[in-house]
């Protein structure tokens, strides 16, 4: 099946991920769902075979995408999203989320909302840093990633690594929601450029 969307690589600093979307295509009988599209995400690391970390990221991405894709319009089909990590300099999960959203937009799958990913770290003294590099992630006390929906800016997915208090998490979330606006504006600008070529 020909790719439904040409690969589009979003970059967060030096992290870049290539997303390719295939679908709605014919699903294997074992995988097809009678009322919705079966969404599958494959995350391929830059080197080596996909391991347990990639599997858990795939599930997180799949659940985020399922929350926005209107799968009921394409029952008994399969939608496959393949993400290839080209370079990793930190904030990989949010880069994957942004790549996934742009892939879904590009392929023309019906969506109820857009989403974006934001990563932030908490230092030992409680200061919040957005879009950390790998070094900053390793040195931080906690690393939080959020997937934020467009429109009402609600949280679709939240992942934390490390320890933080509830108030600190709320502060990180507020900072991430503010940053999400920049990312949605970027989506809008790149789509405007694409459609203005007509």
């Amino acid at each position, binding site marked *: 099946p*020909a*790719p*439904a*969307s040409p690969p589009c690589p979003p970059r967060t600093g030096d992290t870049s991920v290539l997303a390719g979307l295939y*679908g*709605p*295509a*014919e*699903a294997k009988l074992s995988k097809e769902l009678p009322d919705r599209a079966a969404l599958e995400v494959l995350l391929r690391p830059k080197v080596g075979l996909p391991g347990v970390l990639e599997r858990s990221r795939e599930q997180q991405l799949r659940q985020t995408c399922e929350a*926005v894709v*209107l799968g009921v*319009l*394409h*029952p*008994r*089909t*399969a939608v496959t999203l393949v993400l290839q990590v080209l370079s990793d300099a930190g904030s990989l999960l949010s880069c994957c989320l942004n790549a996934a959203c742009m892939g879904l*937009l590009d*392929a*023309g799958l*019906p*969506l*109820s*909302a*857009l989403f974006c990913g934001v990563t932030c770290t908490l230092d030992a003294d409680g200061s919040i840093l957005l879009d950390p590099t790998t070094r900053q992630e390793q040195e931080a006390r906690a690393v939080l990633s959020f997937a934020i*929906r*467009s*429109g009402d800016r609600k949280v679709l997915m939240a992942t934390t690594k490390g320890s933080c208090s509830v108030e600190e998490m709320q502060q990180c979330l507020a900072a991430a929601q503010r940053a999400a606006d920049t990312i*949605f504006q970027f*989506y*809008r600008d790149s*789509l*405007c450029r*694409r*459609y203005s*070529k*007509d």
Partner: protein
Amino acid sequence: LLLPAQYDEDAEGERLLLSAGAAPVGRLLCGPGLRRSPAGLLVTKCGLLRHRPAGGGAYWVDSQQKRYVPVKGDHVIGIVTAKAGDVFKLDVGGSEPASLSYLAFEGATKRNRPNVQVGDLIYGQFLVANKDMEPEMVCIDSSGKSSGMGIIGQDGFLFKVSLGLIRKLLAPKCEIIQDLSQLYPFELVLGMNGRIWVKAKTVQQTLIIVNILEASEYMTAEQRKQALARLSGN
């Protein structure tokens, strides 16, 4: 249908407030890319918002896609993949193969079967195409005439383009087709599923037309005219 369009870029998830200049009379039609929800109109695809004021008004989103989803009434080019009893299975580029009964051709009866082999190209329209059922195609219209549909002849070249280019080519008085027809005479079949079949007098002419059609998605009008001028000057 390229009618006076509002060039707003709409991303999804937005509740659309359709500020109608004149109060719409009659029912407002919601086309592809728009969905009714309890909170109002929801935009489900990104693209340009188009409006047709005729017949009560219709709004839809013109989005660029490559993957085809069968829609009732669309004319498409299908490739025969299997013959199962009285029914042919066609690949139309969607998620399921479409079925075509052997009686759905003009002048076909149980004794007079159409000569369809596996691998043939068929130009037909969808009789049944919704998300819950297998799509069904026919090669006759409602009055029983074929009106251009049926088995596409031998030779020629089939290739795939994006759906947006097909819609552009199908618009009345399309410039690309007019420019190409100045170049060589050729036969052209456009399927709404992104498939185009071209046949010209020689293989070389066919391939030139194929290349121009594929490239016209990204070329501006001037670039296309330059390319055609170079070719006809040869």
